């Protein structure tokens, strides 16, 4: 069996459209590094099914691959997820401008 790649739950905020991540305490954070990391498929799926019920908070939640760095914080694996943590590359807009 293939090894399970750790996951975070991500979606877009309903009002702003901004990228958000599910944190450990069940709240939503704007930072990938603060997201809860799921290391087992079943638990990740269960958590996803649960947040999908929060219909007035966000749009289209899904699981994204993550790797846990030495500092203990998760980082995106795929470039698409990395772009989502930053914003567009042609202007200094989006998350990169809000740090």
């Amino acid at each position, binding site marked *: 069996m293939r090894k399970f790649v750790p996951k975070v739950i991500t979606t*877009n905020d*309903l*009002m*702003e*459209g*901004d*990228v958000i991540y599910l944190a450990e305490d069940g709240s939503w954070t704007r930072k990938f590094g603060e997201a809860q990391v799921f290391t087992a498929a079943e638990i990740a799926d269960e958590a996803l099914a649960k947040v999908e019920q929060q*219909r*007035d908070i966000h*749009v*289209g939640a899904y699981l994204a691959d993550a790797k846990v760095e030495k500092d203990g914080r998760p980082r995106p*694996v*795929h*470039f*698409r997820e990395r*772009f*989502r943590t930053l*914003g*567009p*590359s*042609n*202007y200094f*807009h*989006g*998350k990169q401008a809000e740090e």
Partner: protein
Amino acid sequence: MYKYSEFDESFVRARVTEFRDQVARRIDGSLTEEEFKPLRLKNGLYLQLHAYMLRVAIPYGTLNSRQMRQLAMIADRWDKGYGHFTTRQNVQYNWPKLADVPDILEALADVSMHAIQTSGNCIRNVTADHFAGAAADEIEDPRPIAELLRQWSTDHPEFQYLPRKFKIAVTGSPKDRAVTRAHDIGIRMVRNSSGEPGCEILIGGGLGRTPMVGKVVRDFLPTGDLLPYIEAILRVYNLQGRRDNKYKARIKILVHETGLEELKQQIEAEFAARKALFPGINMKLIENLESAFAPPGHDPKPFHNFIDRTRHDPAFRAWAGTNLSEHRIAEYSIVTVSLKPVGGTPGDATSKQMNLLADLAERYAHDELRVSHEQNIILPHVAKSDVPKVFDLLNGAGLATANVGLISDIIACPGMDYCALATARSIPVAQEISKRFDELRLEREIGPIKIKISGCINACGHHHVGHIGILGLDRKGVENYQITLGGDATENAAIGERAGPGFSASALVPALERLLDAYLENRAGPDESFIESYRRLGSLPFKTALYPSDTRIAA
């Protein structure tokens, strides 16, 4: 220009009110996203990678100064101070907040604009030649027909849930600037042997994952029969287009699978039955619309100052050489304002630039502006005697890039900088190409060439019909770019041929440099353009340049 009738006005206002209510119900949770999504899409509101995106229709690419100023106001008040003009003659706002969208739509309605049917499986914004009503080579202004189709298709009850989206383009000139052969329906206004006006109808063109060049389904249709005939095509497609597979749902696949002849018979049969439902009303409508698009009061004046400036100012001469096109009145020019500054984002304009363009249109261009599918803005009616002044004002606003039709006049979709469907970025590729060839000072030497970039297989960036097409893909988690060669978006439409394996982002521009060096070395002379060389020589010298160490190519 066409002015909204009372009916248009009340319809658009009613839709704003309706959508305001839908947004409120989404925000309070009484509508789920699943329920809301088709409603927001019908009103042009997408969710993209970092934010919502609102796509506003600019019917047949025509707008006046008041509308352009309103687009600028919206950019400032509810977005980040700019708008992105697209290959479908729309404008997109990349950062609206959900709760603000009804107010934005209200502001659009104030200037007779909307975002209706800019998404979803319906008939989308009808596009047209951006030189309509001005081009020297034009047979007839395509906009009355385009407006007729806009009115007919807007909220048409039978065609709101088609198998897939449906795009129509119209040209009134033998020179196709509207890419009619890459649309679900392409309409070319022609004259028959007795000189009567009519239309040639093409169907089944399209890009995306299965690119096809449109085929002529009717070589001459009297203009008065346009609506029943187009309705017949839509009806046949609506009933028979595939709904089992999203990727096979466009009319091009139906044409391909059913065969043109068989489909043609079905369309003709449907047309015969429908024709009676449109007794004479068609021509009356078209005549009314023709008067709405009557030419502005041109005032031909001598233009010695224009000739003098061309003679003495190399910067003006260079710009005039690329950015002016022949107007049907000798004392006028069509001015194309490039939205492709070196290192800039193709198709973007700041609110300040939009306001300046509106001022220029009002003062020097009979209050008309156009958006081209090539993502530039056009002032279609500028007296040659005013062109030097217009140039100076554009220059002061960073809008006098002299590159229309050259290597940095690139079409690029938003790609993975914004689009949720993208598989790779497009904008940085365009930026890098324009910067590199500017550094090399090779742009003028290379001459006319079309580079078109898409960030996914859906081909919003028209890469299949670029002389050089670039398609961004995700190869094992890394951005990778495929090159196609020999595409053509004009009346000689052709789908480009894939050159070979893709390139990494860092290897792409060096590969293009090799490709264009090969062109410069092999061309018959400076007058032979890239595409002409490619057609004369075939792909071999170009592939060899792209893949110098691949011994299989020459074999």
